[in-house]
């Protein structure tokens, strides 16, 4: 049975991140493009005209706060202040929920800290009726679209205010009324469903579109391929978004074949338009989304957008990121913080100041605290969820079936 250990002679290549706990991360080799290339083609251009965009990086906001270049969108100062508020709200809610999870109020939580601009910039550029197929890190879309934060919190608390009656784990929201598709716990699956949704839009001759999301890690699932392939074949009016936040759970983007090529570039081989955008730059995200939405609505088919960003927190409340990456990596990440960058822009154009900003942060924090209180009053995991156990038998089918009725009776009997 004993066979030689081939440890040191193996030629098998296994990618590794540059820095692990204990290392001093240095990202000076990652050039932050200043020229704000590449240029903005016509949204109905041939797909291959966007091939360069798949490997470059669309940016609008300079660190100075200036908005520059071809892609700089026209957004009113009011709308920008609204966006800043959405960013701050999302972050405050994430922080609050994380803390409450630690106190045992809910089983689990997932923050979107560091990548809020992807959701909010994206949502601003879509119509509210465009259906998004989100992952668990696009809560910003709901916030932007004005979903009830209390309902969101109640979902996480699995309590009597939870629109899902406690059926799903925290964060897996479903808000049809806000064009927000039910989030699946199974990675990747919704990409191709979103393409199907978009095909139905085309079939119905509607000019609504769909926008589907995946993390860079989950692009390795077959569904990502199905989505690109079917979107190409049927020219489905949709946006396929890869949020490359550098990390899956503990594995870096090189494990997701990110060393070979950018994630945006996956699209070129399918004949899709491709854009790669600085995901910490809300204006760039907005501009890229706007371009792709116009393309999709105009019959130009799907665009693959890579949002290049960084996951500042752990994957979820279940992992400790300092176990697999340097503790200060989020701080040295060279693309800055999306909230700070938008704030700087607003200050730069004279539409905001530090005092207003401090007031905003204080206000959203206290708003969130109040909303949370009223949500927790409806139950939580640490006390009583106040969800009727019998609801577990509902919505398995449209109408209950005899064997489920029988099981309901068995369950009732075992209560005594």
């Amino acid at each position, binding site marked *: 049975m004993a066979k030689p250990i081939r440890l040191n002679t193996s030629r098998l290549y296994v990618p590794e991140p540059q820095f692990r706990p204990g290392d001093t991360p240095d990202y000076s080799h990652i050039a932050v493009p200043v020229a704000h290339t590449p240029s903005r083609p016509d949204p109905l251009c041939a797909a291959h005209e966007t091939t360069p965009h798949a490997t470059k990086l669309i940016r609008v906001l300079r660190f100075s706060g200036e908005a520059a270049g071809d892609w700089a969108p026209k957004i009113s100062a009011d709308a920008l202040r609204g966006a800043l508020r959405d960013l701050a709200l999302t972050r405050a809610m994430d922080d609050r929920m994380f803390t409450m999870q630690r106190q045992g109020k809910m089983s689990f939580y997932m923050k979107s800290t560091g990548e809020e601009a992807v959701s909010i910039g994206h949502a601003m550029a879509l119509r509210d009726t465009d259906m998004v197929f989100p992952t668990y890190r696009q809560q910003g879309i709901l916030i932007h679209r004005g979903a009830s934060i209390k309902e969101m919190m109640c979902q996480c608390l699995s309590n009597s205010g939870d629109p899902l009656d406690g059926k799903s784990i925290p964060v897996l929201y479903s808000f049809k009324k806000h064009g927000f598709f039910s989030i699946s716990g199974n990675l990747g699956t919704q990409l*191709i*469903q979103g393409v199907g949704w978009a095909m139905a839009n085309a079939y119905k001759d509607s000019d609504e579109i769909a926008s589907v999301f995946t993390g860079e890690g989950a692009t390795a699932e077959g569904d990502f391929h199905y989505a690109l392939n079917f979107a190409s074949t049927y020219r489905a009016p949709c946006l396929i978004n890869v949020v490359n936040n550098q990390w899956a759970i503990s594995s870096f983007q090189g494990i997701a074949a990110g060393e070979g090529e950018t994630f945006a570039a996956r699209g070129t081989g399918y004949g899709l338009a491709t854009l790669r955008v600085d995901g910490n730059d809300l204006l760039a995200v907005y501009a890229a989304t706007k371009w792709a939405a116009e393309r999709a609505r105009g019959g130009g088919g799907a665009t693959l957008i890579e949002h290049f960003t960084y996951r500042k927190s752990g994957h979820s409340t279940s992992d400790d990121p300092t176990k697999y990456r340097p503790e200060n990596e989020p701080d040295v990440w060279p693309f800055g913080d999306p909230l700070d960058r938008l704030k700087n822009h607003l200050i730069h154009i004279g539409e905001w100041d530090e005092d207003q900003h401090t007031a905003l942060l204080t206000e959203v924090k206290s708003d969130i605290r109040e909303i949370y209180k009223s949500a927790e009053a409806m139950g939580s995991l640490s006390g009583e969820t106040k969800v009727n156990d019998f609801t577990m038998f509902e919505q398995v089918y449209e109408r209950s*079936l005899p064997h489920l009725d029988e099981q309901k009776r068995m369950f009732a009997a075992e209560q005594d």
Partner: protein
Amino acid sequence: MPEMNMIEAIRDAMDVKMSQDGDVLVFGEDVGYFGGVFRATAGLQEKHGLHRCFDTPISEGGIVGIAIGMAANGLRPVAEIQFADYIYPAYDQIASEAARLRYRSNGDFTAPITIRTPVGGGIYGGTTHSQSPEALFTHIAGLKTVIPSNPYDAKGLLIAAIEDNDPVLFLEPKRLYNGPFYGDPHAPAKTWRDHELGEVPTGHYRVEIGEARKLSNGDDVTILTYGTMVWVAQKVAKDLGVEADIIDLRSLLPLDIEMIERSVNKTGRCVILHEATRTSGFGAELAAQVQERCFYALESPILRVTGWDTPYPHAQEWAYFPGPKRVGHALRQVMEA
């Protein structure tokens, strides 16, 4: 009434629904211009248009994935999986997604899709064109699984499936497409032409999901079966002169347990027949439920007659198939016990 074989009946069901409801779309590998490898969709593209009956990439996961998205967006997709043996790449989309979308969103989104796929052996299809994977679907909450054994039921059940607001697996015993099959591959082939269940009404009718059909009445034994094995059961019972309640389940989930219970309580004996692999096949569930419910009426152990726990071999197809000998053996055994 028109006489149809099972392929024609299935096609007619789609045609009826496509004509009634602009939300019904049909797609799958080779289903468009060509009309499907078994011709089930022949003529539908020409009649209803390129957008309503079309070819897909060879990607079962993708096919079910777009079906779910379309269905959530208000359409009624009917997806064909060319052979049930090729449904596994779509298993995740079926079991994790279609089956649970309604539940996890608490009714906010739903997936009223129909998946049609040919099952069973008897055409020398070997390991990859012969499988009967029904038990892999009956284990998943949120799915319905039906399997007709004749043209009449095929059309009515398919219409009911398309109209159902939950995802339905519609399994088609391919050996029955052209005629009933009584288990002897060397006997002259029968067609549906002279069979009463080959008489298929025109237009819309439903066979309700969840209702079994009793094929014959008898006091000796209850035979529970579905698909191809229905006709083998009929033939063997007749040849052996056994007076059997033969129940064609038609719908595996939901199951017509009332009819089953009544019958076994009357006969006191039960044999279950299916083509699928034995271990953890749907026969296990049937046996478990029958003994749970009819224990005191049973006079002998419930026997299962099934395919063997091997892949479906090619050259040994008829040694694998649970044919008349195997069925007869079990029937005699249960009667003698």
